[in-house]
């Protein structure tokens, strides 16, 4: 045991003395959270829209002026027919078309309800979602104010997303970012740290010592568990205070699950490093094996349910997928362990599997 702690202390020295490592460990998560976070919360400003208003009465004018004076939107063009909508989007200038139904005001007066269609360019899904919800809010605000002074009225706002009908919640981003940052940092750091010993030649001397593979592996992982937990705490605090992500469930459960996920990421890093000979390869594999799949195959950006069957199977072996499900459940829905035990169990079995594989792959000699 004393041997093991000696090893852990040495690892801490390596990490704390390397300013680059420290930067990656603590600078990168904060930076990435901001980058992804502001992709979510950027305020809309002067978004160019087009209006199709065949009715052109006082109510539609009032709604239009509300929308255009909000500061969020700018009128790019007025359209005269529905057939002009598609070409208008094709120019790429406008992000949304607001379509009022014909005879808007008279219908509203006669039936008490009328409909506005919002068509948004969802090729940028996030922005489209935001644009539509802002527009909806403005219209609803108008309705509630108008209803106080005159007869009750109702305007149905129907939004349609062009090019990408499947929009996911913006809250997806924080859990996804967390999953990505943690797996990237943990896997990257540990894979580099073992490979570095090989490159520097110190592994040669370590091998000619009574240290066992398991002591070397666990000794490598331990400091990073501590540091990655600090990272996770930073991310959770940021998502709560900076990005206003709700925290419905138990914080303790969240940290526990995060800990499990961190250990899994670290073990994956170890597994990579036992199979590579130099730092560049280790970095490359970490990037390609973890960063891209986390973004593409974890449900982080693209919904898994829409993927072809083969990709869905591939998704099923991606650890971030389960972690994202777990944190979404805990943070957004406030679910307890009863609802996430299956995912938790999958993560734990992956840990066991990769520890066994790593120890078996760990070379007790130089070849």
């Amino acid at each position, binding site marked *: 045991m*004393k*041997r093991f*702690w*000696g*090893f852990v*202390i*040495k690892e801490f*020295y*390596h990490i704390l*003395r*390397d300013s680059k490592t420290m930067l990656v460990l603590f600078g990168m998560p904060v930076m990435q959270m901001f980058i992804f976070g502001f992709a979510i919360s950027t305020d809309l400003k002067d978004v160019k829209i087009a209006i199709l208003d065949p009715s052109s009465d006082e109510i539609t004018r009032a709604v239009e002026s509300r929308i255009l004076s909000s500061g969020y939107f700018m009128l790019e063009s007025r359209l005269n027919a529905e057939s002009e909508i598609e070409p208008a989007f094709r120019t790429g200038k406008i992000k949304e078309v607001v379509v009022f139904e014909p005879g808007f005001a008279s219908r509203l007066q006669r039936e008490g309800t009328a409909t506005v269609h919002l068509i948004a360019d969802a090729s940028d899904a996030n922005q489209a979602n935001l644009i539509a919800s802002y527009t909806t809010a403005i219209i609803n605000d108008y309705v509630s104010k108008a209803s106080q002074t005159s007869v009750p009225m109702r305007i149905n706002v129907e939004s349609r997303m062009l090019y990408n009908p499947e929009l996911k919640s913006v809250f997806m981003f924080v859990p996804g970012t967390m999953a990505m940052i943690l797996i990237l940092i943990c896997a990257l750091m540990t894979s580099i740290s073992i490979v570095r010993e090989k490159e*520097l*030649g*110190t592994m*040669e*001397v*370590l*091998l*000619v*010592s*009574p*240290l066992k593979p398991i002591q070397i592996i666990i000794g490598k992982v331990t400091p990073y568990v501590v540091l990655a937990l600090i990272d996770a705490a930073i991310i959770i605090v940021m998502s709560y205070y900076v990005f206003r992500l709700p925290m419905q469930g138990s914080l303790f459960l969240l940290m526990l699950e995060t800990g499990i996920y961190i250990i899994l990421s670290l073990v994956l890093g170890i597994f990579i490093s036992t199979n590579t000979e130099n730092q560049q390869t280790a970095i490359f594999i970490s990037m390609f094996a973890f960063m891209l799949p986390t973004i593409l195959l974890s449900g982080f950006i693209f919904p898994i349910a829409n993927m072809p069957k083969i990709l869905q199977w591939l998704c099923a072996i991606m650890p971030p997928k389960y972690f994202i499900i777990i944190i979404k459940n805990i943070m957004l829905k406030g679910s307890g362990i009863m609802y996430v035990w299956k995912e938790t169990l999958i993560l734990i079995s992956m840990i066991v599997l990769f520890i066994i594989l790593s120890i078996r792959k760990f070379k*007790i*000699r*130089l*070849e």
Partner: protein
Amino acid sequence: MDESFIEAAGLTKTFGPITAISDVSFHVGKGELFGFIGPDGTGKTTLFRILTTLLLPDKGSARIGSHDVVKNFREIRKNIGYMAGRFSLYKDLTVEENLKFYATIFDTTIEENYHLIRNIYSHIEPFKKRLAGNLSGGMKQKLALSCALIHKPDTLVLDEPTTGVDAVSRREFWEMLKELKKEGITILVSTPYMDEASLCDRVALMQSGRIMEIDTPAAITSQYPYALFAVRAGNINLLLNDLEVYENRRSVQPFGQTVHFAPANAANEPEGLRKYLESRGHSGIRIEPIHAGIEDCFMMLMTNSEQPKTE
């Protein structure tokens, strides 16, 4: 050598098409300072890695004490101190932290075995708070030796410990090894420097993965069968060129500012050589008979062993 503490028999190791060592056999007595001498690429490192259990031999076997290097590798790893060919300590750890780390992983403390390293470590102790990466070559080597010794190993395996180290530090280093011998530690050391051979109890001369000769340095040099002369002249390059084409030559080897010359037929020499050199217009000619050194023997053995191959 009353007993053979380390024994290797027929060790062979190939890497793909390259044969690193071939049929290497030797034995080393307890407490002996045994040197492997040979230029770079002769398989010294491969041999040491097999002995330190880092590589598996293709053929042959070896043991240290009663432990087989393949079967009992864990036992061996507890009992040997290994200094790898390149500097392999942690550059971002201080001198003291490096030493402490190696003490800890062998389950001991600096204090416990301080007596073993006192002579060596005292040179670098004033710098114990300095990062190992900032040490000079000589100090790095002393630190590496201290780290290899801190767990009181019964065998030390030092792979080219003096390569890239200044002359003064090299001499100091060999003094330290002599001190360690007194502690009863068996020491295997490899070096490309022929002049260090005479500091070993016995040496193995290696060339192309084979051991050409094993004996005490004195015995090896006394076996040199030819007359040998150290030749000097004003222009060493011209001297070399002319010696290379001198009829009565057996071997011509440059040694710094002198050339070691062995005649094919010693009867007429060195008078014949002097006349020849004078006729070639050399000035300041000095020819002295000398005793062969290890390097002369090495060169001779090398040419002898190469000749059958070229046939």
